[in-house]
């Protein structure tokens, strides 16, 4: 009689854990028996174990708890495994970039170009200089245009023209990066002849990609500034433009800087447009207005795609370049986070 009353209507945690352990055990035995000459991969066993665990726990739950809870458990399992499944390639990516990139992450890599280098040695200094110059120019073009446009949209924008601008920014957001590169090429080849390659054209291509990002994020930040601040300032007799410059923008400055840093992080890894208009070279070129200019993403691509006699040296340099790129992007993103945190009190206490 007591057994009827205390009959479990839900699976206890102990039961689930027991089923989990037996799932893993079954998976291990299956792998141990059926393996031919292959070795046992722990991750594979774990994945198979999860499947076996699912096959054990779902029927058990169905019998004990009923159909609805069994479905709930199934979906919970699927959601968790979707997350785990997606994590595997991303972890693998970061892991390989770090481990393989460290092989050539040394002083020579950051201290020399590829001029006259065949095989081992050499570095990416020319590419790093190129990336810094091109990205800086792109930022110098994009930040004023993007910031002013967002000021227009938030503070002045009424009527049809502002709708047009909003739509066009949306369209610009969707321009594929390679099309931006083609545009810069088409533009500059009209003035400089059909074989034009220069760093500045690359910066123009990057600006096309960067401006909409800056507009988007700044617009969002400016809209967050409370209207009371604007009204208070205007009521004190401060003209509108000074209100914008002295009240609105300083209030939103943290968010604006964060958005700009993230926009820079977005374009600094762009490869395709620079491959087209900035070209590639083995030598240092400080002048963005003439001749080909190497950049870090193109360096990675080029090291891989045209390997010389000592292929491993080229692949090692490609990975080191990839690691450098990821470090730069992460630093920019983390910096943006920190800026956002430091300036937060300015907005709402």
């Amino acid at each position, binding site marked *: 009689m007591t057994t009827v009353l205390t009959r479990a209507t839900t699976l206890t945690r102990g039961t689930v854990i027991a089923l989990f352990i037996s799932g893993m055990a079954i998976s291990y035995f299956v792998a141990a028996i059926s393996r031919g000459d292959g070795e046992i991969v722990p991750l594979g066993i774990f994945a198979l174990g999860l499947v076996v665990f699912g096959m054990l726990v779902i029927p058990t739950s169905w019998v004990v708890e009923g159909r609805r809870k069994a479905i709930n458990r199934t979906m919970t399992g699927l959601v968790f495994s979707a997350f785990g499944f997606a994590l595997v390639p991303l972890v693998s990516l970061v892991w390989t970039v770090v481990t393989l990139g460290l092989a050539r992450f040394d002083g020579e890599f950051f201290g020399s170009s590829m001029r006259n280098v065949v095989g081992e040695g050499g570095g990416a200094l020319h590419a790093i200089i190129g990336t810094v110059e091109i990205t800086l120019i792109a930022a110098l073009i994009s930040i004023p245009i993007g910031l002013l446009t967002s000021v227009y949209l938030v503070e002045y924008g009424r009527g049809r023209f502002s709708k047009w601008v909003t739509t066009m920014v949306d369209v610009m957001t969707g321009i594929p990066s390679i*099309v931006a590169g*083609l545009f810069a090429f088409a533009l500059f080849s009209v003035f400089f002849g059909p074989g034009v390659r220069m760093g500045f054209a690359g910066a123009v291509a990057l600006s096309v990609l960067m401006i909409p990002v800056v507009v988007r994020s700044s617009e969002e930040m400016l809209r967050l500034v409370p209207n009371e601040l604007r009204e208070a300032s205007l009521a004190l007799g401060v003209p509108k433009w000074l209100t914008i410059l002295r009240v609105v923008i300083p209030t939103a400055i943290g968010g604006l800087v964060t958005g700009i840093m993230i926009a820079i992080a977005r374009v600094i890894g762009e490869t395709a447009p620079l491959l087209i208009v900035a070209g590639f070279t083995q030598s240092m070129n400080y002048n963005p207005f003439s001749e080909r200019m190497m950049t870090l993403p193109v360096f990675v691509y080029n090291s891989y795609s045209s390997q010389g006699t000592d292929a491993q040296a080229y692949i090692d340099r490609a990975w080191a370049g990839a690691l450098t790129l990821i470090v730069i992007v992460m630093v920019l993103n983390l910096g943006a986070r920190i800026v956002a945190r430091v300036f937060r009190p300015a907005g709402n206490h």
Partner: protein
Amino acid sequence: MTSAPPATRRPRRGDRIFRGISIGAGVVILSVLVLVAAFLVFKAIPALDPSAQIESTPDGFLAFVGPLVFGTLFSATLALIFATPLSIGIGLFISHYAPRRIASVLGYVIDLLAAIPSVVFGLWGIQVFAPFIQPVYLWLHDNLGFLPIFEGEVSGTGRTILTVGVVLAIMILPIMSALAREVFLQTPRLHEEAALALGATRWEMIQMAVLPFARSGLLSAAMLGLGRALGETMAVAMVLSPAAAVSFKLLTSENPSTIASTIALDFPEASGLDVNALIAAGLVLFAITMVVNSFARAIVTRQRIKMGEN
């Protein structure tokens, strides 16, 4: 107070100048877009002439771009097929399953992953993923070879359109999951609580309250992901071994190529009318992504109107 009139007049001039500058920035954006379209069309026109002698495309421009359009759509669709269920799962995990403290960290990690440059994905795809997945392709061919998509001789390098689809899916996963999470988080709390109060399990609550509310948001997230996948260049250029073929076979080394990767691979070597042909192909890509993106925007706008009415 006697000096009031001049005091109000001077700022007005400042206002006018500042207003003019910020409108000017908007004009710049409009003209940039017009310029992009104009220069691309201008440079593309010579290739569209049917009598033009294009070295790489002797059969005319349409015969050149047709297979590429197919490859672009095919690889992006593959990516979307893999990425959509996964991104919904990840979005749900972060918004409704993970403990709150972990959830915010995970959201941040996903944002970071969205920033990884595509050339790094390409390098990883060809060096790590393609060799890893190739035995799986052999297995698929041996056991499911009767399906048309798994027919043909399996590529020895793993650099197939299926690999490209998976790599593209991994690349658009962060942005799509971030959007999905955002949509899920906007579900009215009262709807969720009402479902739970009626005795629904967590999944039933998600089915009844979260998913119907998020449907259009998810659709637009998928469209934006599709737009990304269509325009993605470097990963495809590095991973795929292209053959400009039109085929649905996933595992062979005769793969349809994409517009963007063809431009990236051929442009540095191209000269003469070949350049114009590539630019014209870029224009086609621009048009395709614009259609996809405006579709996504239309969905968002409609949803906003609908929510305003409720």
